[in-house]
């Protein structure tokens, strides 16, 4: 699955256009970064409200190619620059985490 598959109405890519080509395998939802590090699998897209540099650092350390920022959390320009440098896709949505997971699952993207 690719990040571009996620991008329908209600989802906006914050990182550069090529990041939509990033492939991911499965989702992991969570906000506490220690728990994310413990449980997310390499390749997962992270569904979270944590719009900060630490989320990018964790994604980079445990090989998560994409982050879906939920509930209207916005990526800062610093986050976008770091994510672009690390090749991580950032997607923004106003949906709640649980609704993102349900929506992507229904679309066969989980």
């Amino acid at each position, binding site marked *: 699955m690719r990040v571009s598959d996620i991008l329908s109405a209600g989802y906006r890519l914050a990182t550069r256009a090529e990041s939509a080509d990033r492939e991911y395998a499965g989702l992991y939802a969570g906000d506490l970064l220690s728990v994310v*590090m413990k449980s997310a699998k390499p390749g997962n897209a992270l569904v979270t409200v*944590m719009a900060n*540099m*630490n989320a990018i650092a964790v994604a980079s*350390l445990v090989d998560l190619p994409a982050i879906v920022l939920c509930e209207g959390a916005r990526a800062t320009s610093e986050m976008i620059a770091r994510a672009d440098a690390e090749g991580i896709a950032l997607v923004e949505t106003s949906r709640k985490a649980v609704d993102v997971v349900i929506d992507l699952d229904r679309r066969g993207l989980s």
Partner: protein
Amino acid sequence: MILVDKRYEIIPRDFNFAGQASSDIKRTLKNMRFSRDFIKRVSVAAYESEINIVIHSLGGRAAFKITEAKLYLEFTDYGPGIPDIALAMTPGYSTASEESRLNGFGAGMGFTNILKSVDRFDILSDPNGTVLKLVFDIGEADRDAGL
């Protein structure tokens, strides 16, 4: 023979800079073509240790060494020390500040994640500072494509 010998400063309360040491450690291991699983174990332990210094200490430093058989990480901070190490290591126990929690920390899982990742763990703490020594054995399977 020492293959890698690096040092890093760790700045307290700087959540934007946090993780730089761990990122460099990961990059180094990736360039040396260690296995994905080994890199993940070291990265997680390094990041948790680095974050502990960022959120709890007055600042500190890290040393990173690799020999042919072992990888060593040593995290040293300048206080205020951990009053009760056993309690600090209890899964779910956290004294992280509100600011740290808003940054995604304070799950109380830091030491648990570190312990799960390492082969040897030593900790010394008093009010002047804490020293955390982590050792990873390097096996044949950890060298993905050879050193």
